[in-house]
């Protein structure tokens, strides 16, 4: 039996952490995190169960995504490394200007030269990666987008009525949904009434634009971490 009264609830703090291009867990800013009073996955499964056909072209899309993954990651990592080196170079150059005509200036100048050398050596690799990514994009992307049209059509018809069903579930439990957006440290804060809640969110995957991290986690404690361990890595059909 559901409660018959509104009572003050609790605050659930949520942090979103996903692997960055180097694979290190990184807080993600700007992710919309919602607390919902029902199990979203069950609702999705129930709606998928009503249709006789599965999502179209998944195997083909999976293989196209796979083919795009390597050139995308190679370019992104190369660009990221160069960006990091450039940032370091800027700060060393600033320090060198400040330390002009001091003993430290010589050392900083040498460091600057080493950084410039590294940047020069990395530039051709970045250009190669850029060319490979462009080629992959030109070849794969039109096919991906064509197949996505069918996949999205299937999604629209399969999940037609999802919003109504979700609203009805929330209303039957007499709860108001709560949502927040993660801050610079990846944290969001949600106030929920008493009773069972699920935390749901999706975050882009920095390593692959065709994938995302998805979570639908029971909020059993007041702090919930949305990480690869608690979420699922899903293709964006």
């Amino acid at each position, binding site marked *: 039996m559901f409660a018959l009264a*509104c009572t*003050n609830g609790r605050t659930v703090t949520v942090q979103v952490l996903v692997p960055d291009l180097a694979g290190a867990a990184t807080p993600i800013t700007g992710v919309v995190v919602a607390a919902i009073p029902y199990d979203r996955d069950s609702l999705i499964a129930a709606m998928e169960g009503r249709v006789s056909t599965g999502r179209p072209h998944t195997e083909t899309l999976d293989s196209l995504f796979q083919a795009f993954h390597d050139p995308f990651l190679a370019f992104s990592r190369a660009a990221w490394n160069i960006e990091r080196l450039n940032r370091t170079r800027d700060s060393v150059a600033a320090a060198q200007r400040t330390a002009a005509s001091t003993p430290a200036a010589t050392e900083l100048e040498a460091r600057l030269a080493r950084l410039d050398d590294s940047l020069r050596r990395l530039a051709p690799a970045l250009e190669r990666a850029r060319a490979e990514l462009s080629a992959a994009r030109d070849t794969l992307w039109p096919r991906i987008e064509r197949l996505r049209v069918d996949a999205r059509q299937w999604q629209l018809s399969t999940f037609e009525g999802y919003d109504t069903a979700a609203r009805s579930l929330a209303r039957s439990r007499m709860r108001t949904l709560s949502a927040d957006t993660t801050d610079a440290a990846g944290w969001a804060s949600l106030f929920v009434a008493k009773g069972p809640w699920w935390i749901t969110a999706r975050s882009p995957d920095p390593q692959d634009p065709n994938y995302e991290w998805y979570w639908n986690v029971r909020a059993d404690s007041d702090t919930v971490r949305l990480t690869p361990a608690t979420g699922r890595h899903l293709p964006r059909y």
Partner: protein
Amino acid sequence: MRRTRLLLLALLLATAGAATAQPDPHATRSKGSVSAPVTVYEMSDFQCPFCKRFTEQYFPSLEKEYIATGKVRWIFINLPLVSLHPNAVPAAEFAMCAAREDKFWPAHDLLYRRQEVWAPLKNPAAFLLSLADSLKIPRARIAPCLEKAETRALVRSDSEGAVKAGAGSTPTFYIEGGLLAGAYPPEVWRPILDSVIRVKSRKP
């Protein structure tokens, strides 16, 4: 402890006895005869869906059976659960501004009827002001009351009194010495009210 709380609640809420010479502070937000044998204080939150359910589904029967027949006087006390319902205070302030225009109950009904519209708004001020038009309250009269938050202290005082008295959820009802917490249907209310009315109507 519970008895102390209930006595405190009686003092906090029942400030206006029927026979006192002072003006009744609850007159604008009460229903029923001041000489009714039983007084019920409803501590509610306009953004609470359970309060909405009680008001729209259950209260009409109670009003017909007990208030219109002179057995019960019903008084509304604001208990906005601010941490749960961010727009509950503006709604309560709106209702109390409407009360100054003798439109508390129409405002009360309208707030619950349109709860799903204003409850999720980031800033409900404009929408609440538009409700004044439906209530035929001139904007020139209600706007200053809302803008200057002239009823905020009253809402806060209501809320503090209710919380001190032990009401931690909405709706909660104080019925002649007892607290009933929850949006219960008339079947639950009837035996409670009938027995209290019986006791209170006995001649000494």
